[in-house]
């Protein structure tokens, strides 16, 4: 079952919501560091400016890859909010990230090259958890359809605690936050300049930003599913979740990619295996 209206609503509203979240994020981060911080609308100003800049490229194909990245991020988010198949959403998201990586490769710079390799390491790190999360939702509700999972009358957080914690652990990486911001980061000038996005500028960089907003909203939507039985609790939980992410971002230092990969795989393996086995053989609750 697909609800096209929700998909359109996502496509229109998600950038606004995602941009606001990014703005609040920056404001809170500044406050945690004892600074005033930029205006809440700053992310919109940034993208507005990027659109006004000159079109500069290193290779013709890089813009194509970034455009395709944006399209498929938006597509997978829209598919998710329309209530589509969760596995398809996950695959579309993988496609999107691979396109971003290819864009970085095509730019040929050593910094974007290393960023691309690290982005792939990230992809390899979090992909199992995301697939297993989809499997967990299926085992708990009997469906891959986001619509049916969201309509599930009981709290999924109670039957999927392992999956929830595992997903939360990789969320840091998905949101490109410390300690797992290894592929591109505002704070890693010395090692990788800007990693994946080093060679993207102007409107191309703007597209990457907007794609990031879309993805933020999609990720929050994914976590919504754990609390979908009660919207009030869901909103509160998501707020706490995101606050915790901002706190972790400010309280931790970036780790090496080897540690990131190892720890995420360990968490994924232990928590999701325990949770899934419990669900499949003991029927959860």
């Amino acid at each position, binding site marked *: 079952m697909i609800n096209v209206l929700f998909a359109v609503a996502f496509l229109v509203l998600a950038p606004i919501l995602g941009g606001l979240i990014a703005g609040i994020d920056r404001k809170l981060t*500044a406050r945690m560091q004892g*600074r005033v*911080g930029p205006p809440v609308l700053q992310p919109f100003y940034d993208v*507005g400016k990027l659109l006004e*800049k000159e079109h500069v490229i290193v290779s013709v194909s890089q813009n194509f890859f970034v455009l395709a990245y944006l399209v498929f991020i938006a597509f997978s988010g829209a598919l998710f909010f329309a209530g589509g198949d969760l596995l398809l959403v996950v695959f579309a998201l993988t496609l999107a990230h691979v396109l971003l990586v290819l864009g970085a490769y095509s730019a040929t710079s050593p910094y974007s090259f290393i960023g691309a390799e690290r982005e792939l390491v990230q992809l390899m790190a979090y992909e199992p958890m995301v697939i297993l999360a989809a499997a967990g939702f299926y085992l708990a509700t009997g469906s891959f359809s986001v619509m049916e999972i969201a309509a599930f009358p009981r709290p999924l957080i109670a039957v999927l605690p392992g999956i929830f914690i595992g997903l939360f652990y990789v969320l840091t990486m998905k949101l490109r936050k410390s300690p797992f911001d290894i592929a591109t980061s*505002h704070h890693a000038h010395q090692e990788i300049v800007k990693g994946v996005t080093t060679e993207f500028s102007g409107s191309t960089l703007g597209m990457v930003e907007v794609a990031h907003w879309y993805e933020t909203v999609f990720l929050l939507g994914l976590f919504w599913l754990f609390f979908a039985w009660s919207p009030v609790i869901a909103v509160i939980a998501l707020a706490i979740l995101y606050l915790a992410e901002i706190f972790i971002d400010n309280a931790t230092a970036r780790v090496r990619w080897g540690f990131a990969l190892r720890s995420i795989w360990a968490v994924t393996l232990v928590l999701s295996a325990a949770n899934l086995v419990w669900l499949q053989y003991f029927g959860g609750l």
Partner: protein
Amino acid sequence: MAYMKRSPWIIHYDGSSCNGCDIEVLACLTPLYDVERFGIINTGNPKHADILVVTGSVNEQSRQVIRNIYDQMPEPKVVVAFGICACSGGVFRECYNVDGGIDQVIPVDVYVPGCPVRPEQIIDGVVRALGVLEEKRARMKSGEPAEAGV
């Protein structure tokens, strides 16, 4: 639309500074001055930057690099020389290994002298640079080259 003025991203290059000005530039990012209030971000990447901030004078080593960084920045862009060395070479002007101020290599839009330049001056200099940036954007919009006279 004046987004350009609200989101100036900076790349900072140290030509051959004694680090005095550099420390002051970094001080602007601290809670006391917090230039992110104005949307200023230190990007460290010319492809993302709007303002090139240079400290220290030009020498044979840094000449090519300054040129390269400047060329890699997309239009519109402005250059701010922070500290007397960047403006004119300062006390090192006559040294055998110093070529002089940044304007020996690239066009400079705002000169902020000082030894070292103070954070208040830095912020003031960047704000003035925003005016120039806005002018260039307007020129670019109307189809003229952003760099007048180049």
